[in-house]
């Protein structure tokens, strides 16, 4: 009978509700029982050992080994500090840093390039290192341009410590140069010489003259060097006022347009080739020349190309210029509350000392930023053309530092360059639109 079952049921209904309640409670308690992370506060609480996380994007084996050795040496010498090596990678570094800062779980030391550090510094995520740097030998020993690269535009504070930088170079297929009777321009060459040589060095579809990275979000990485060489500053501060300076860059853009459509020195493939594949493609001979950074030598060596290759400077027009991509370490401002800031600064100073900078730079096939380190004879060797790249260190420039640069680069300049090169935009329109949109962005990001 239904009624009788209901009479004897109240206990089981309550029982059921009790069970459901326990289940819900267990589901709610589970996170507390199973979480594995030690809250940040616990990390620094022990006065005994301060843990410092060293987040790095080092990927070339030599540099990874050098950095790990450096941290090991530091830990041995400083038993009260434990520096922990945390591997990152360039592809995800910015996302990692942004989310970590937003969540308050950022590692103490974070590796990136100077423009990123400036942005994070202005936003408050990175600590101001000006006083710390001035109080150490880094102020005098670091190359002034490297320090300038790390200095923020408006408040002129230094939000990260530079330790290495690269030189943008041109890799050339020496055998093909010899074949066509072109001497390797070890002392530099002009745009005209370059174009004449490149025309002889291109034979589509078998191989092209020049390959470069013009893919989306990286379009200006290689191209901006050519724009600088015309004397254009792209985005610069003039008398306290920031402005877009693209008009003088016409020859650079016209040159690339002609290289693509008139001389067929470069192919449309450059518009989608990311940095990853270019050295490998060059090593199998798909292009006679390759524009990228001096870090790629190890990749080329590993690829064992069947030809001799050389690394030389980019051609110059009104001046020599290439990107310097200064790499820096930033200090999380949250480390102050955690009490690990002093320890982290110690680690940074140690990793940025002369020997560690030399070891790291050699392992990364880049150059150190300390003047004393740069003077080391290992950077003057002719093997793998270190000496040629070193001669260009003085001509390297950094990307514009204004906070508007990322949006200008990715949203305005890059796509417009691609559309111009794909004949969707005329040169005049390119310059006028980019300048107009750029000025709007400069206004949007101007400090309030």
């Amino acid at each position, binding site marked *: 009978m*239904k009624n009788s*079952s209901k009479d004897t*049921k109240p206990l*089981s*209904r309550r*029982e*059921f509700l009790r*069970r459901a309640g326990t289940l819900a409670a267990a589901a709610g308690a*589970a*996170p*507390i029982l*199973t*979480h*594995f*992370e030690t*809250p940040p506060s616990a990390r620094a609480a022990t006065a005994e050992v301060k843990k410092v996380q060293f987040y790095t*994007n080092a*990927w*070339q084996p030599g540099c990874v080994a050098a950095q790990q050795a450096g941290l090991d040496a530091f830990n041995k010498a400083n038993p009260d500090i434990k520096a922990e090596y*945390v*591997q990152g*990678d*360039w*592809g*995800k570094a910015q*996302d990692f840093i*942004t*989310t*970590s800062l*937003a*969540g*308050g*779980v950022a590692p103490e030391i974070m590796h990136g390039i100077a423009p990123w550090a400036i942005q994070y510094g202005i936003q408050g995520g990175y600590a101001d290192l000006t006083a710390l740097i001035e109080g150490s030998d880094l102020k005098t020993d670091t190359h002034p341009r490297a320090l300038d690269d790390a200095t923020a535009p408006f408040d002129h504070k230094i939000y990260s410590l530079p330790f290495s930088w690269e030189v943008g170079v041109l890799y050339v297929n020496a055998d093909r140069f010899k074949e066509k009777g072109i001497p390797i321009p070890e002392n530099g060459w002009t745009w005209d010489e370059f174009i004449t040589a490149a025309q002889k060095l291109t034979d589509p579809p078998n191989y092209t003259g020049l390959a470069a990275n013009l893919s989306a979000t990286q379009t200006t990485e290689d191209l901006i060097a050519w724009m600088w060489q015309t004397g254009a500053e792209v985005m610069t501060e003039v008398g306290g006022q920031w402005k877009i300076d693209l008009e003088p860059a016409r020859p650079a853009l016209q040159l690339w347009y002609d290289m693509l459509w008139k001389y067929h020195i470069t192919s449309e493939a450059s518009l989608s080739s990311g*940095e*990853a*594949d*270019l*050295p*490998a*493609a060059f*090593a*199998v001979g*798909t292009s006679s020349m390759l524009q*990228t950074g001096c*870090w*790629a030598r190890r*990749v080329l060596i*590993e*690829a*064992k190309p069947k030809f001799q290759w050389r690394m030389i400077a980019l051609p110059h027009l009104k001046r020599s210029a290439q990107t310097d991509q200064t790499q820096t370490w930033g200090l999380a401002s949250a480390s102050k509350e955690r009490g690990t800031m002093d320890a982290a600064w110690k680690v940074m100073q140690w990793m940025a000392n002369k020997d560690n900078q030399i070891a790291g730079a050699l392992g990364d096939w880049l150059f150190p930023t300390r003047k004393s380190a740069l003077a080391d004879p290992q950077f003057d060797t002719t093997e793998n053309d270190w000496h040629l790249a070193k001669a260009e260190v003085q001509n390297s420039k950094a990307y514009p530092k204004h906070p508007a640069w990322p949006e200008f680069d990715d949203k305005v300049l890059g796509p417009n360059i691609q559309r111009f090169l794909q004949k969707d935009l005329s040169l005049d329109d390119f310059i006028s639109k980019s300048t107009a949109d750029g000025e709007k962005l400069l206004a949007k990001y101007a400090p309030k």
Partner: protein
Amino acid sequence: MIDHVVKPTQSIVSRPLINRTNQLRLQRTLQKLPGTLFSYGWLILISIFTAGPFLWIVSTSFKTRDEVFTITPTLIPNHPTLANYQYILTQTPALRFFLNSVIIACGTMLLAILLTTLGAYALSRFNFRYRRSIGVWLITGQMIPGVVTLIPLFVLFTQLHLINSYFGLIMANTIAVLPFCVWMLKGYFDTVPKDLEEAAMIDGCSRVGAIRRVFLPMAAPGITSVALFSFTSAWQEFMFALTMMKDPSMYPMSVGINFFVGMGGTVAWGNIMAMAVLIIVPSLIFFLFLQRYLISGLTAGAVKA
């Protein structure tokens, strides 16, 4: 069947070569021939399409660096090598990543089964006021773009101390698969007749008991399909895993593979593809094992969904 017996009076030469039944069979096969030809042809094309990239992954995982970067690619490597597998299994924490993936995927599967069964049962068996709105909210949840919710979720998880914990990631994965699974499972449960449980309850079972004894055995295929779907989704999940796991020793494989990938300029294709094989093959085997439950579980759900 009498007509296939040869009449003894027929001579060899006048006897028909094929008898009537076989003639009909042949006729029917010939009629279906265009359809059958098309079917096989289509299946072969589709198989090339779906399996092609996978074959490429497998083939590249056995190639040396020189063979990867060559102008004339080959499907079967000329000098196959196990070096890539050797490298990732001995020199990298690939096995650790594999273990993490197993923990996270199994955890997601179990939690998803639990929550989905409860939820779908409630939506199917009880008629209450908010039934429709919950269903609508389930679909709406799927429509919110992930990129936008990433940071708020991350901050929320940080405050709940769920970062760097298996449970946090399991929770996030489960929530991601919940809407679709609940929807399909509800449809499946709708086809399981209520009478049996009600009879059991009349006979003195509590509702939970009725579920356990009567309902679950019948609901097994649907629940298996939920298990399969949630396991596979969790196995491949990348965005949450990357954001939530800060400690490299807790990365699942989908994040671990990124380390071979995003490394500055060079991409160790052989290693990445070996890792990819490690990711795909176990999941594929698990999938193949249970796939007929997936289809039967969805079949019934399909009608009533």
